């Protein structure tokens, strides 16, 4: 099996609302696909179809080689789902939550207990394992939720906005856990609104908007479609900036419309361009105050493609 997840022309309507209008994607085994999109883009609908919670209206999806429509039980035995709502039972302790999910995955009592201990340890929840989950912090709940998804060592993991609402430290923690899982061979489909998250975790990214694929590629490819790296130079006065603009005309320098002291130059030649630019300014006797390199971010890609903030 070389493909962990495939979606082919998936369509789903809820009444008049079009959630997916024909979305295709593929997750090669052992890789992470980031499904990126604004609220209501159809990300969660895609996850619900892949986890057999929902049936698609048209199209086909396979997970771990099984068709979700014809072999839902085999799919359920191959996946772990961690959701944006952190679906843990607040009134059960951390350990009880894991054992319950283990039992419902048809592990026997001993295995469910052992595996829970292992996961509580791995997710730094051992000390809190006897407390009801309602006493957990947001980060602890997410870790418990992810731990529950991993109880049977599923080869395919579906993470629906796993870090939404988490503080930066908890987010880092969770990212590290996910990276470890992927390094061990788990295939992951991850939905997120955070471009930083997709940038860090995903091998490939599919941007969806209004139920359709808006763009697809690696993070670097998506950024490349958006243009070049530029360097922004801030000079002492707007008169200096005017002079700099003239001496750097051959490099395609532009002056900022919001800050007249700042000019930006595309870095077509990388470090060589920077050296030339600085030498030319030096020769013209112009002092550079601030110096910023601006890389196109996935945010730029996202805003450009979806037109939403």
């Amino acid at each position, binding site marked *: 099996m070389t493909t962990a997840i495939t979606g082919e022309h998936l369509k789903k309507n809820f009444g008049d609302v079009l959630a997916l209008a024909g979305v295709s994607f593929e997750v090669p085994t052992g890789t992470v696909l980031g499904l990126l999109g604004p609220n209501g883009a159809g990300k969660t609908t895609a996850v619900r179809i892949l986890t057999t919670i929902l049936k698609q209206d048209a199209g086909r999806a396979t997970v771990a080689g099984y068709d979700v429509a014809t072999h839902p039980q085999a799919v359920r*035995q191959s996946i772990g789902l961690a*959701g944006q709502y952190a679906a843990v039972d*607040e009134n*059960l302790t951390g350990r009880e939550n894991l054992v319950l999910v283990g039992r*419902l995955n048809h592990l026997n009592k001993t295995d469910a207990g052992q595996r829970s201990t292992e996961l509580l340890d791995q997710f730094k929840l051992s000390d809190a394992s006897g407390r009801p989950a309602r006493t957990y912090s947001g980060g602890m709940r997410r870790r418990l939720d992810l731990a529950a998804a991993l109880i049977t060592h599923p080869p395919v993991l579906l993470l629906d906005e796993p870090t939404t609402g988490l503080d930066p430290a908890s987010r880092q923690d969770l990212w590290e856990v996910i990276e470890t899982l992927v390094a061990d061979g788990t295939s992951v489909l991850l939905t997120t609104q955070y471009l930083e998250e997709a940038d860090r975790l995903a091998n490939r990214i599919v941007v969806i908007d209004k139920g359709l694929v808006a763009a697809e590629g690696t993070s670097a490819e998506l950024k490349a479609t958006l243009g070049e790296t530029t360097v922004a130079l801030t000079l002492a006065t707007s008169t200096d900036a005017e002079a700099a603009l003239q001496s750097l005309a051959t490099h395609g320098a532009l002056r900022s419309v919001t800050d007249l002291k700042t000019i930006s130059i595309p870095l077509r030649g990388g470090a060589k361009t920077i050296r030339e630019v600085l030498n030319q300014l030096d020769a013209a006797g112009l002092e550079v105050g601030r110096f910023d390199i601006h890389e196109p971010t996935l945010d730029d890609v996202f805003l450009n493609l979806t037109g939403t903030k």
Partner: protein
Amino acid sequence: MSSLTSSTPTGGAFKWAIRDALAMTGRNLTVIRRVPQVLVFSLIQPVIFTLMFRYVFGGAIKIPGQNYVDYLMPGIFVQTLAFGAIQTAVGLAEDKGKGLLERLRSLPMARSAVLSGRVVADTVRNVFILSLLIAIAYVVGFRAHTNVPMVLAGVGVMVLFGFGLAWLFALVGLSVPNGEAAQAAAFPMLAPLVFASNLFVDPRTMPGWLQVWARNQPVSATANAVRACMLGGPTATKVLISIAWSLGISAVLAPIAISRYRKS
């Protein structure tokens, strides 16, 4: 990686359905124990009704040939069961609202277990509450006129009725978005069953059109059966009518509720 894998059902789907239902029952009973306030509040209401009807209104209500307290307490038992059944809807709706049902749907567990585990746990809770209520009944002067097996038969009739109601409210719980909505939807459904009934007064005092309803609806039928079991008189027909209601409601609504869970 270890070699843990979820086993495929070897003993047949039925065996797994039972095992999964037991796992869910255990979970639901743990939740009831963890949040004892719910249980306490579900006892406060019947205690207030008992005190009110026993000592405030009771003197004004005449039931020919009977002590009012003996007539009243089986009514209170059935009322408590009926209102307690709302918890089935609330519990399910809360699991749904919190996203827990989503996770359960993604597991290889039996589809029926979420509902059957809920209904079985609520049945256990009913037995517990009824035991406490019978003790309270004795404190305020209620006395069974039959024997222990007949009193237990009366409890059995009520537990079975509670089972039927649990399926009705499981369906309600699946049809609303959260716990508050379940509460709001359930009360108007129960009011005509609980109050336009023979639970507190003899329907003979009601207008003719209301008597027809108050005598024959399932809550009254169950109270009739319980009174016959605990107080004596002709019993068999009354018990059979109540059992027929309970089994009928379960037979119709359990498959509807389970299929609704599968589809939603």
